[in-house]
């Protein structure tokens, strides 16, 4: 099948495993039909089809696998994602892509890399994290700051804590508030994500940050990042829009004159800071 067709017709896949992460979020591992592999760059997205429901843009949460599987971390949010959450292993879905630009991993070489994830934003950043860990020697330092609403909805926590023990990753976790039990979680701050940046000083031009999270996260985080010394050019934001086609036709995802699905979803802060309604 030629590339343009892959872009417009979903290929079939089966749900191989479903790992419930929280009450409303699960990790779906899909096996593509016909030993097909699915190369992508961290930060790119796919259009996932749930038959009878429709299509949603999702960023793979893992690295491209050689065995033709792909891992998607999906929160139950509405129409299509609810249907997906009702599926069982073995059920069929469709997938098309990858779309968008992805994170500029080459530009991160030699830098102090900061990953900032809010809530579900950890999904694409997990993919980036894996990539950077695999090419750890290319960058100077690697820090992941991850904020969740409460301890119970913190995704991949054990996995992240374990990665942190290797010493190649600095991990800072925070929750907006503690669970009802009131018990403090070990290794976890209480407070909003930007608070983790308070007082941090980075070397301008030698540091960069990748941010992904709900719309509300961006404004305050950017201010803190700028204060910390990260250049506008080096702040990468992954934007969410309602992408219907993924190939720049349906027009739902325009940010100013940029199309989020083709020229994004990852933009540098400098590129979009003057666009009204971008953030």
């Amino acid at each position: 099948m030629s590339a343009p067709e892959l872009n417009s017709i979903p290929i079939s896949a089966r749900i191989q495993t479903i790992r419930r992460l929280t009450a409303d979020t699960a990790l779906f591992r899909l096996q593509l039909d016909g030993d097909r592999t699915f190369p992508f760059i961290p930060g790119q997205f796919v259009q996932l089809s749930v038959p009878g429901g429709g299509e949603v843009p999702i960023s793979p949460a893992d690295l491209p696998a050689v065995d033709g599987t792909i891992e998607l971390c999906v929160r139950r949010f509405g129409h299509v994602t609810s249907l997906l959450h009702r599926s069982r292993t073995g059920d069929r879905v469709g997938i098309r892509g990858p779309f968008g630009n992805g994170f500029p991993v080459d530009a991160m070489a030699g830098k102090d890399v900061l990953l900032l994830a809010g809530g579900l934003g950890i999904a694409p950043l997990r993919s980036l994290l894996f990539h950077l860990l695999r090419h750890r020697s290319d960058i100077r330092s690697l820090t992941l700051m991850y904020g969740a609403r409460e301890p119970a909805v913190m995704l991949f926590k054990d996995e992240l804590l374990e990665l942190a023990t290797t010493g190649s990753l600095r991990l800072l976790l925070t929750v907006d508030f503690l669970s009802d039990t009131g018990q403090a979680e070990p290794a976890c701050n209480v407070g909003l994500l930007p608070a983790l940046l308070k007082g941090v000083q980075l070397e301008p031009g030698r540091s960069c940050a990748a941010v992904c999270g709900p719309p509300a996260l961006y404004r305050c985080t950017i201010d803190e990042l700028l204060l910390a010394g990260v250049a506008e050019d080096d702040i990468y934001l992954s934007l969410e829009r309602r992408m219907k086609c993924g190939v720049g036709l349906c027009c739902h995802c325009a940010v100013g004159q940029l199309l989020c699905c083709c020229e994004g979803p990852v933009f540098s802060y400098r590129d979009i800071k003057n666009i009204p309604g971008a953030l």
Partner: protein
Amino acid sequence: MTRPSLAIAGLTACFGCQLTFLNCEAELPTLAGLFDFTYFPMGSSRREIGGEFTAALVEGAVSTPDDLETLVRLRSRSRVLVAFGTCARWGGVAAMNNHLSRVAMIESVYGKGAGPTRSFNPGPLHRFVTVDFSITGCPPEKNELLATLAALLHGALPVFPQYPVCTECRNRECLCLLIERGEPCLGPITQAGCNARCPAVSIKCEGCRGPVTEANVASELEVLLEKGISREEVIRRMRRFYPEWDYGQRS
């Protein structure tokens, strides 16, 4: 997979929404096999509101204690409660005169001191219980009903258009009755989904599907007043299926 069980019931209404179900002639035999019609007095003599329903499709406005009782019983036994049709969704024709004295209206029909005593101003379902989904229309459209039923089979609910009748009217290349004839067409503020049935036969939209989410009510009023239609007439027409418009609403 177990067959989803359905309740289809009517409150204060004309039975048109339930008839719309029975009007799915081509699909009815299939539907009979796909769902368990546990409670559907119009279509079946099995009439106990017993166990659990996957979904209850409730037609009509609430205007009597009996209506309310049926509604509450269905609500408490159903996973999904669907307001079925304009009366259930918006109040419908029976509610158009809710601004007038009900006692006086009853007297005008039945005479002084006579007539039914136990009834109140008809209101939509959501005034009394939580409604999960609605299929609007007086009558509702078959295809929307079938799409809902198909989605229910998958444990989902469908997505319906959020734009006004005008969009469909233009898509069908009908004459714009508002611009070309100066008629008080309610297309601009009415929820689409009927494929502009009325303008398609050169009849102004009477708004039978209720307000579109994004109605610029104030501007529609201004346009119609400019065309020389009295405010009283516009409001009377607008009230026909939904008595609670916000006439100052712009978005």
